[in-house]
């Protein structure tokens, strides 16, 4: 019900903006035809095909405007300010931090002291190799190399801001070695809140409820400012007061991805309609991506949209069921198609392979593990209390609860136990954990899995200086981008824990470069 409400809101936004687009276009054409005036002067904001008219007077002037207050935006703001520029950060939502502040707080670091202490051999080259493999070699290699080479530096930069990390290192899917460091609270908020503290110390203003609606350019294409709305109440497009901000050095786009933009994402991938939920915050929409394209940025792989395979359809958004699936069902248990009772994919394949396989069955999958397999799940009680995962005394009861043919389910479990004994998964060649035990000791636990939209790999093209590349293959003067809005870093599939490092590395670069 709540989901419906959320989707309905977004649909309303879409239909409203479509209506205004049509209405605006019709009105301006009518007037232009009648009066013979230039379309430019009369075209409303929403008809974005026409370049906006520069204001006669700017309301405020500053060196650098950063749009977005997540990892990348705040990193850019801090670096630009430290390099001597005056900076303002615009955030359209009523809270700072975007998706970063609700992110899982895992940071891929190649060659960290934590790895050394545990005798794990890693290098930027190995991280690069892993990212290219998952990315199906669609990655822009110069950008991936930048992320891989600077991962340790970026990690240490967050530590210098006061971010604390847990001792353990996690081995996430698709990485060759354990290299992912978790923040102390298992949330990106541990990083964002320290960035926000730094921003405050440096005297940088973060203007919340401030919506950038247009990028303003000089006739030669140089980006010189923004048209914004102050006091914007997301998602009410009619709210807020229009102002013009001049950016003497330029604008950094750090607006994130568009996982919650049902209209845009379903144009890129028609499967991703309002029937598919997302793990993202509601403000993860693509209006600035489209605005960047309007000013001539080169699009990169925009239809490569990642779904997380671990989420549950029995709760909203990211939820908590994913913890059960990722730490028990996929690792120590099995995932079955409830219609057949059989496994259908390697439960530890990359996110795309797993998500595609679940969707192909046409309904949520069921993951299950026994009492020994759930020992690594830190919040099992909470997940059970919420009713997202369930507990059963026998496999028969489990099968009945999810309408799974009990005979084949028991065969599947017995087959897996045989593979475990033999040390090889004869069906899907899944990696066997060294501490794996047969699925045999009750109680048994189960959770449903249904993918949700998680990350948009594609975006606009940048170079290693975080400059946005235009259709003429040259940087658009005064326009920089970092984080999820930039495309090409992750190629076809982003690995877990590689978003944070990408955002910090390119956010810092954008800030340093724009202040030059």
């Amino acid at each position: 019900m709540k989901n419906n409400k959320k989707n309905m809101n977004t649909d309303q936004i879409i239909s409203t903006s479509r209506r205004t687009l049509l209405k605006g276009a019709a009105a301006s054409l009518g007037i232009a035809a009648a009066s013979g005036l230039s379309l430019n002067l009369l075209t409303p904001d929403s008809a974005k095909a026409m370049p906006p008219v520069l204001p006669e007077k700017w309301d405020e002037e500053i060196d650098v405007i950063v749009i977005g207050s997540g990892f990348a935006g705040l990193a850019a703001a801090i670096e630009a300010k430290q390099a001597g520029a005056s900076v303002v950060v615009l955030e359209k939502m009523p809270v700072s931090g975007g998706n970063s502040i609700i992110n899982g707080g895992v940071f891929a670091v190649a060659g960290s002291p934590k790895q050394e202490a545990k005798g794990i051999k890693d290098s930027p080259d190995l991280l690069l190799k892993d990212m290219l493999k998952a990315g199906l070699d669609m990655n822009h290699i110069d950008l991936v190399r930048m992320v891989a080479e600077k991962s340790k530096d970026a990690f240490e930069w967050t530590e210098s801001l006061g971010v604390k990390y847990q001792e353990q290192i996690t081995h996430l899917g698709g990485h060759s070695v354990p290299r992912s460091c978790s923040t102390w609270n298992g949330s990106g908020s541990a990083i964002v809140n320290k960035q926000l503290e730094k921003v405050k110390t440096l005297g940088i203003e973060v203007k919340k409820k401030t919506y950038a609606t247009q990028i303003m350019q000089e006739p030669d294409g140089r980006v010189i400012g923004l048209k914004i709305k102050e006091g914007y109440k997301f998602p009410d497009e009619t709210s807020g007061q229009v102002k013009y901000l001049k950016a003497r050095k330029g604008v950094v786009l750090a607006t994130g991805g568009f996982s919650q933009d049902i209209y845009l994402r379903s144009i890129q991938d028609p499967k991703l309609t309002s029937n598919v939920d997302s793990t993202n915050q509601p403000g993860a929409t693509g209006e600035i991506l489209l605005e960047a394209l309007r000013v001539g940025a080169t699009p990169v792989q925009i239809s490569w949209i990642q779904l997380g395979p671990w989420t549950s359809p029995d709760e909203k958004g990211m939820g908590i069921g994913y913890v059960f699936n990722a730490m028990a069902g996929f690792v120590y248990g099995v995932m079955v198609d409830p219609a057949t009772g059989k496994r259908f994919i390697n439960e530890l394949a990359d996110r795309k392979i797993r998500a595609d396989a679940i969707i192909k069955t046409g309904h949520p999958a069921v993951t299950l593990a026994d009492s020994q397999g759930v020992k690594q799940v830190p919040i099992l009680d909470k997940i059970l209390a919420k009713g997202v995962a369930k507990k059963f005394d026998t496999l028969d009861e489990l099968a009945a609860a999810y309408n799974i043919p009990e005979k084949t389910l028991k065969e599947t479990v017995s087959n897996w136990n045989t593979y475990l004994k033999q040390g090889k998964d004869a069906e899907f060649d899944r990696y066997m954990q060294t501490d794996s035990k047969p699925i045999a000791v009750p109680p048994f636990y189960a959770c449903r899995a249904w993918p949700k939209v998680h990350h948009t790999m594609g975006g606009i093209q940048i170079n290693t200086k975080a400059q946005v590349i235009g259709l003429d293959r040259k940087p658009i003067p005064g326009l920089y981008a970092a984080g999820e809005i930039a495309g090409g870093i992750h190629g076809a599939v982003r690995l877990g824990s590689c978003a944070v490092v990408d955002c910090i590395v390119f956010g810092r670069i954008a800030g340093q470069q724009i202040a030059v």
Partner: protein
Amino acid sequence: MRNLTVKIAVFSGIISFIFLMYAMTLVSAPKQSSKARGSGCSACHEADCKVPADHVDTNAMNLGQCLECHSKDTPKLTHTLPLSHTHRLNGVSCKDCHGNTQPPKLVNTDQCFSCHTIENLLNNTKDNKEANPHNSHYGPELDCDLCHHVHKPSENFCNQCHEFTFIIPSPILKVAKLL
């Protein structure tokens, strides 16, 4: 032709309905009086006073005194009254927040913190089993009006992502049962 008649009938029906709804809001919306006491319902609500005729005189009461009797209401009294009323009942007048100017000054979070303290808020909600909304991943310094609305029902901002069941004071629930 018949279609047109139907369309006209439907259209005029819609217009009259909209007018009727508008007229009803004019009748039912209480007027706002800066001179009214928080407990002097009839000063604003006039004939629409929610307090029964045989209720003890509320004119000189404050919120604490209301709660002495209304301690077991379901839903709680503080969930059925707007936040403006609980403020008024605690002796906070309109101009204490909105100033003495016309039009009244818009209230921001700093204004709230001229009376409320972060420490108190954190402490009030620390035993909430689902989460302490005043000390979330967003930290303690959020704008109050993300959740707490004074002249309209409050909302749970956390639930744009989460599915918490705890109730933010003054969601203005319907009075189901008193005492």
